[in-house]
């Protein structure tokens, strides 16, 4: 299966996917954010399908990619311009397990801050200094990439790939 991406200057970007032997699915991402879908045969006959708003296209993408989403990652992130928010799940062997937030010294040692602890029985936003970590907790950290990196290497066996 071949896919092509072409620039449409002033309009947007065109993606085409070969379907079978003699048809193409053409998807144009307009600069204003809309997505237009059409079928084109070898002679260039075009059958327009639909024009989707950005939100609708995201929903369609979510439905189509279901079942192909990879196994939940132990590490999720949300990057802003200069810093990020990271979700990190604690392994049982993490040195943090059993420690309180204050004892761990995460802030002092790495610079990153814990803004929430997520656990199935009830999450703790803005955890107090005496919050005690347990295996399986997901820590939500905020910090510069190097601060988060310091956290990862000090307290987990996850290594950053950025």
């Amino acid at each position: 299966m071949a896919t092509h991406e072409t620039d449409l200057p002033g309009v947007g970007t065109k993606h085409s996917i070969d379907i079978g032997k003699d048809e193409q699915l053409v998807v144009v991402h307009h600069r204003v954010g809309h997505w237009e879908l059409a079928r084109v045969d070898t002679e260039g006959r075009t059958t327009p399908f639909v024009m989707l708003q950005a939100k609708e296209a995201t929903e369609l993408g979510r439905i189509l990619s279901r079942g192909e989403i990879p196994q939940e990652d132990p590490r999720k992130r949300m990057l802003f311009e200069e810093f990020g928010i990271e979700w990190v799940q604690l392994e049982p062997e993490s040195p943090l397990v059993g420690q309180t937030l204050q004892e761990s010294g995460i802030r002092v040692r790495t610079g990153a801050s814990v803004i929430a602890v997520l656990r199935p029985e009830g999450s703790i936003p803005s955890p107090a200094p005496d919050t005690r970590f347990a295996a399986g907790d997901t820590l939500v950290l905020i910090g510069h990439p190097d601060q988060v990196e310091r956290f990862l290497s000090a307290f987990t066996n996850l290594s950053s790939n950025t």
Partner: protein
Amino acid sequence: MEGHLFQFAVLLGVLGFAAVVSIALRLPVVPLYIGAGVFLGGFLEPNDLIRFLGSLGVVFLLFSLGLEFSQESVARDPKRFLRAGSIDFLFNFPIGLFVGRAFGWSWTESFCLAGVLYMSSSAVVSKCIVDFGRATRPETETILSIMVFEDLVIAVYLALLNALIVGGSDLTAAGVGLQVFKAGTFVLLLILLARRFQAPFERLISHRSEEAFTLVLFAFVLLIASSAIAAGLSEAVGAFLAGLVIGSTRLKERAASTLLPFQTLFAALFFVSFGMGLELRSMIAVLAPAILLVAIGFGSKVAGGFFAARSSGHPPYQAAVVGLSLVPKGEFSILIAALASSVAQPGSDLEALTALYVFALSIIGPIGMREADRLWALIVPARSKPS
């Protein structure tokens, strides 16, 4: 001060009205701005302030052209790109030179007319493609890549036109050579500087504050535009190059959205002040040659586009659509006519002719694009039914 403010208020009010009318009638906005200018010209004199702001509009138009320049369209298939673009050029540029000479005009004026006939409006063409739902069609990429070729030609053309205007009638081959050399050195220097200092440059200009970013960006654009004048090029060419430099950085999108409101305002002032310089009487006087020009321009654009598309491997029906899609004229023809006003001989009426030409083709062009299927059915009756 009060008088200025009031004049401005009237001007912008009329322009705003023209924009509303253009949306309601689904017409391109540029001819309506010029029409508004012709109307206002009856009782308002364009002052230096409006002319200056209008010339900023030209700088921003060309900056935006450079910013949006699609290198991918060139790199995708350079041979096809050059072949299609050259066919369009050969069909439409020399004919303008020929017609200008036949009118008894000077070479410089004929060179201007050739530009007016050749340059299509990328703004109108891409808007029509979106509005008529043609973005997914196979011939659309060919239409747009021909437009990209035209954009490149515009930059070179404006540099040469400037040389002709500055050099006047006693321009020699050595003079042109020097001009090309100076332009080449300027472009090369700019590219080298941009390569070498890209990272610090991006940091300098990409301030987080929108305020600082806007000011530094415009300072940069105007600096390059004014140094282009010093290098013997025109400010428009400098602005185009500045656009290319910024367009190859990560700041492209941000610069485009910062620029848009300013470009809208200043370009509108440029078109309206062009219109204010025209007289209805002189336009009526050139009606007959204008109709001739429209017929020639329409025919050569459709033919050029048709053969350009055939050379890119499109079947006849798609090639005809490409030809019809290249017809709309707009901002660049007007820009050339405005520059030409300084060299035009009295009585050549290039400005009035161009205004009428752009009026006609910016309205006929989109209609031709919309009705392409029906027109094709008239020419090739029910033999093979196109989509």
